[in-house]
């Protein structure tokens, strides 16, 4: 709970400061707010301190953070703080973008902690509405405009579908509280009254959530919006929306664990389709950003596999995967942002990197290894945990996921061709220094890859 407070206060503060200040001047402030939120949440999650007293006014039936969820809060806060810190910010007026990001993050936290459909809905909206604005924050850039309007229209549309689902579930179970729903669903006979209403509700709400996590076939917004939005926002979207979406999704589905046999069917189907789709389509992408967008769709597919496992007590698997995904995605988007110039969005931006900037090349290599799931990076560990826990339920889906990750090697490693190529005309951009946080992130992904037991211990 402490995380949500600090973030929210920070957001308001930065938002108001933003009226007069430049973005770069608020950067440190917002980053430190978020970092503080991350640290405090972590401290609370690990049980070193207890800040629950300040959360007493919030009814537990609406929002409640378990220890595991606090880990996610901490992770998202930390990642966002890193995003804000490492991405260059404009010197134009208006640090309101940072404020909006923090506000959006607050929405993400609400989703994570939500215990009630209203809170879940509000979380989604608080997450989304600032993002609609942020996607279009590059006001004079037509691509950014287009991204904003696409994101907005489709987001609003999916919200409507999500809400219809809420209404159906409400009709079927006569409650909006997730805990209550779980109880009622498990009472034999109760559910029998309106089975199709509840099922339809689950499907419709899931559609809304699947849209948020950009799973096939509700992924259409992702590549376009990722491409059009400013890099910093894309990174934020790719990481925060997806992770928060999955935590919310898993909380939501846990309430319907009585239906898990039925749920698993379609989740497996969608997961397999998403993995294949994301990976295969990513193969033919020319732009780095779009490749990463499809890669993030594929990752949504892997994460869907988590939803078929008995999630109770298994949240650390999702956490591990989120950490792995967040670390490598941020690093890769960072390099994409750093080296992309106006006319240059393809892989050729990395040409000759190894020869002009060794450390950058090595960092990028490790990040690519991690996202591809090669051993002794956290990416492998996470994938391993995820697949092992899903294997019991559906070995075939896991096998397809394995094939998918093999395909993904092709486009992840496409970068290596350019990175290790010898380039005669040195790219001037390559020479610039790399933010120390990036080093930290890569180091963390290796340390966690070698000492994976840390994840299990945190929960």
């Amino acid at each position, binding site marked *: 709970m402490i995380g949500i407070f600090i973030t929210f206060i920070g957001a308001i503060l930065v938002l108001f400061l933003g009226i007069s200040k430049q973005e770069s001047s608020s950067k440190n402030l917002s980053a430190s707010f978020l970092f503080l939120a991350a640290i405090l949440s972590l401290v609370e999650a690990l049980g070193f301190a207890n800040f629950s007293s300040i959360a007493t006014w919030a009814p537990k039936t609406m929002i409640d953070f378990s220890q595991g969820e606090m880990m996610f809060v901490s992770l998202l806060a930390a990642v966002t703080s890193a995003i804000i810190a490492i991405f260059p910010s404009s010197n134009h007026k208006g640090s309101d973008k940072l404020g909006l990001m923090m506000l959006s993050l607050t929405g993400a936290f609400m989703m994570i902690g939500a215990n009630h459909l209203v809170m879940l809905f509000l979380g989604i909206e608080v997450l989304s509405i600032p993002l609609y604005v942020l996607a279009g924050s590059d006001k004079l850039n037509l691509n950014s405009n287009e991204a904003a309007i696409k994101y907005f229209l489709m987001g609003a549309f999916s919200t409507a579908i999500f809400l219809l689902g809420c209404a159906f579930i409400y009709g079927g179970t006569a409650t909006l509280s997730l805990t209550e729903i779980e109880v009622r669903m498990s009472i034999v006979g109760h559910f029998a009254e309106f089975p199709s209403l509840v099922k339809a509700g689950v499907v419709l709400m899931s559609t809304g959530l699947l849209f948020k996590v950009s799973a096939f076939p509700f992924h259409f917004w992702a590549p376009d919006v990722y491409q059009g939005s400013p890099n910093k926002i894309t990174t934020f979207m790719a990481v925060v929306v997806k992770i928060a979406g999955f935590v919310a999704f898993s909380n939501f589905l846990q309430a319907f664990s009585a239906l898990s046999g039925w749920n698993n069917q379609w989740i497996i189907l969608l997961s397999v389709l998403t993995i294949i789709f994301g990976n295969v389509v990513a193969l033919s992408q020319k732009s780095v950003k779009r490749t990463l967008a499809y890669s993030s769709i594929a990752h949504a597919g892997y994460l869907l596999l988590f939803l078929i496992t008995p999630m109770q007590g298994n949240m650390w698997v999702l956490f591990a995967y989120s950490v792995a995904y967040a670390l490598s995605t941020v690093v890769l988007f960072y390099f994409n942002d750093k080296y992309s110039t106006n006319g240059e969005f393809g892989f050729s931006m990395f040409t000759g990197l190894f020869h002009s900037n060794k450390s950058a090349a090595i960092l990028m290599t490790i990040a690519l290894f991690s996202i591809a799931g090669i051993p002794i990076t956290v990416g492998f560990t996470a994938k391993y945990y995820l697949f092992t826990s899903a294997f019991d339920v559906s070995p075939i889906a896991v096998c397809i996921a*394995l094939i998918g990750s093999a395909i993904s090697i092709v486009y992840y490693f496409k970068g*290596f061709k350019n990175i*290790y190529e010898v380039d005669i005309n040195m790219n001037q951009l390559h020479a610039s220094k790399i933010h120390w946080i990036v080093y930290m992130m890569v180091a963390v992904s290796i340390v966690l890859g070698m000492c994976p*037991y840390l994840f299990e211990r945190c929960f």
Partner: protein
Amino acid sequence: MEIIILPLFLSVLAAAFGSKVNKIVWGALSALTLLAMIWVKSNLNIQNDGVWHTTYDMPWFSSGIHFTLGIDGFTGLMLLLTNILSPIIIFSINRDKQKSLLPLILFMQAALNGVFMAKDGLMFYIFWELALIPIYFICLLYSSKDAFKTTIKFFIYTFIGSLAMLASLIYLYLKTKNHSFAYEELLAVQLNHAESIWVGAGFLFAFAVKIPIFPFHSWQANTYTYAPAQGSMLLSGIMLKMGLYGLIRWYMPIAAESISFYQPIIVTLSVIGVIYGAVIAIKQNDLKRLIAFSSLSHVGLIAAGFFTLTEIGIQGGILQMFVHGINVVALFYIVEIIETHSGSRELSGLGGLAKFNRLFAALYLIVVLGTAAVPFTNGFPGEFMLLKGVFDYNTISGVFAGLTIILCAVYMLRMYQFSMLGESKTSFKEIGIKQLWPLIILVVIILVIGISPMLILDKVNPSVQKIMLEISNSKGVLS
């Protein structure tokens, strides 16, 4: 543990000071691993009684997944191979490539040692993958042409294979009593027929790609051709052995229920591969391609020998693993010398090099004869045992596999003649004796093993007995 840590540490050192220190020093340092082996063996007082002794054990991923290393005769032999060849490969590096290649090769050495020592399924997989990464970069960084496609094909192909193995391992893991990847636990898993076939397929696919067994070899020739010599040496000399090692150590005891199903298939495919590789090698012009196909032919025979499940076949195969490693590295070393000294490795452009350096010619000839399995060289005992194994298993297969001794003579002698004999077509730079030392070492090994193969067979015999016991115990396949 030291056996892995030492090269790993050296690798980091090499990344820092790679180009400042002479490669001979690095080679010597890399060879220190052999000392580490002896040290580990004597320190832990390990007996060669067939048991896979645990030398290091530490909980890792979770309670069921340990970081466990073990040594027995078989592992010892593979470690010996790795740590003899790695320094030699390091010797062959050109000065301008030294800085990038050294850390990669040393890292690879560490990973390979890990593969052979890993006693835990997941660790085995992890080291297996780790060994793939440096070789990928070695090929990528210094491939002779724009060979990104080839390297990525190689990587994906083997990667898919190893993922299949991972799937099998996870399946077994979930079947163990207390969810563990420990070798003993995996052995204890009882599978029914259908399960064993699927689990076996996972392992076999991984190993078949790596070995490679006949239809899974399409990555091989091009990768060898485009990779720098060091890459080809590592790939063919040591990495292929990972697959063969996996067959014997992991696949056969663990999924033994499926052996009777796969036995005829694999033996047939391998024998086809033996002839197929040999026939293609006959007309190759590029020396490296020639060696690649010859290698396909040779390892096919080893795989066939393993799958006969006869003791002589398995022991012969293990011996031949070592022998092939030595021979093929020697061959690639020779190709490297020829290429750097005459600027070409196309047979059509070579010839008559024998007159430039008699010692080199003699060493080359011995290596060629070793590959062609002439008595008194190391190729003979292994190939004899393998052919005997295959022959005992199935006479027809034995006769077809036996054709290799004819075809191998055809292409190896052709290779020797077209490069060394006849009128010389190219100039040839002076070869310093310094460059020939690694080759001399290899040739001495070739001759020693050729005369007394029992030096090696005695060492692996207890392990083989143990493994065969495990295969027959759990499943009763061996009558």
